[in-house]
């Protein structure tokens, strides 16, 4: 609903009629999705609904059986995976991890960490980070590439509610400042609704999609999420306040 005068720009990535099979199981069937510059699109759906598979298809990590993915030429994609399972035998501190993005200037690295709210972790071993710190460090690595499109797979899993609210605010700020497009995978219904421009509700196929307010009253959505959905108090984000 482009709030606060956030112009929706060019289409960055578009998936048309995407179907994916894993063995005999159809994981995705005829899914359409697109993300444009300046908007936050959130993918919600129950476990096993194909959210991660769709993201992988859009990132061209997995080739769909049918349908196609068009990525605007020349754009940079930043990706944060759901989790990082670094073997404990691999000595790797945050600085080294961030340097793998290609940026090695220590000042830039410190600044980006401060920007995502993870100060003072530069010299820490990556496997010693807390869940929330890890998510922020992953985000920092993606941002170092100065992405046009940011793809975040479950960025708030394992983060407490307070941390989640903060994280969604951070994501909105990144969108506002950098004017990138953001594709978010989540199942925190409540927060997603408040922090998103467009919601795509997935369950193997697209159940419904649109503005958060519309999706939350869509029968298909209510059926899919049942109890959980009715417990969600959707508050439309009227921006008469400022995020600190």
């Amino acid at each position: 609903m482009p709030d606060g005068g956030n112009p929706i720009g060019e289409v960055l990535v578009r998936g048309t009629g995407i179907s994916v099979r894993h063995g005999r199981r159809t994981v995705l069937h005829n899914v359409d999705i697109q993300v444009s510059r300046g908007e936050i699109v959130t993918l919600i759906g129950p476990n096993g609904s194909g959210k991660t598979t769709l993201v992988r298809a859009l990132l061209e990590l997995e080739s769909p059986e049918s349908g196609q993915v068009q990525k605007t030429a020349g754009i940079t994609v930043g990706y944060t995976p759901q989790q990082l399972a670094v073997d404990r035998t691999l000595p790797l501190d945050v600085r080294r991890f961030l340097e793998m993005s290609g940026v090695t200037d220590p000042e830039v690295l410190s600044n980006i960490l401060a920007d995502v709210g993870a100060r003072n972790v530069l010299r820490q071993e990556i496997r010693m980070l807390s869940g929330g710190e890890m998510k922020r460090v992953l985000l920092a690595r993606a941002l170092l590439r100065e992405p046009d499109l940011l793809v975040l797979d479950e960025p708030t899993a394992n983060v407490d509610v307070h941390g989640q609210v903060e994280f969604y605010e951070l994501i909105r700020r990144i969108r506002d400042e950098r004017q990138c497009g953001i594709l978010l995978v989540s199942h925190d219904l409540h927060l997603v609704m408040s922090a998103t421009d467009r919601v795509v509700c997935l369950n193997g196929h697209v159940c419904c999609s649109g503005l958060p307010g519309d999706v939350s009253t869509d029968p298909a959505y209510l059926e899919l999420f049942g109890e959980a959905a009715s417990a969600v108090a959707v508050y439309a984000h009227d921006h008469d306040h400022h995020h600190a």
Partner: protein
Amino acid sequence: MLMTTTITMPDFVLYALVAGIGVAIVMGATGVFVVWRRMAYFGDTLAHSALLGVAIGFLLGINVNIGIVGVCLTIAIGMVYLRSQRHLAEDTLLGILAHSSLALGLVSVSFVSALRIDLMTYLFGDILSVTPADIGWVYGGGTVALGVLAWLWKDLIAITVHEDLARTEGVNVLRTQIAFMTLFALVIAMAMKIVGILLVTALLIIPAATARRFSRTPEQMAVFAAIAGSLSVALGLQSSLMWDLPSGPAIVVASALIYVVSIALPVRRIA
């Protein structure tokens, strides 16, 4: 047994030491990836299949090392393919490949027994029979291996940390994996002469494990693993000469002892 009159002691000891340390350096640097990527069992499988390479080398009348590299590569590629089919769990697949290739190797070797393959030499290594030509092979192959490893290093680390993340950042994952497999096969062919098929994995893993506690970066760990491996070779050779122990196992025992001692050492904490 070792003190024959025709061989002056310094010569064959020197050859063994020089070749052994060459192998240990390459195995240390490669071994860290085996540990980080949890490929210990995979390394075992390749090592087991090496005997089949020996037999094929003899049967075809080609260089045994070429036979080993060829078979290891075939097994490695076969493994990548079978894994993509997702019919069986990975450790089951590796078990099938490891044991059937070892058995096939033993059967094949029996065909060429007329040519007198000394099975024990291949299974447990024979570092004391190293010749100057072997040293040339070890250092030639070792230089190539380290060169390839240096070239792959950044991408390999990226893939080890997160494969999809590396791929979205432009790393050619398949090319890197195939190159690493080739490297791995080369290293195993090299190491076989020294510690033998059955102990190759030990020399890949134990020095790397020893190095872990003292390392703060991946590169440090590789260097420390190379040092720990070299020490193991020197110590193992020494005790093998002193007490007339089988050299390959003695080297592995030495590396295990170094690991145990390293656990007891205090580690300088990061400030």
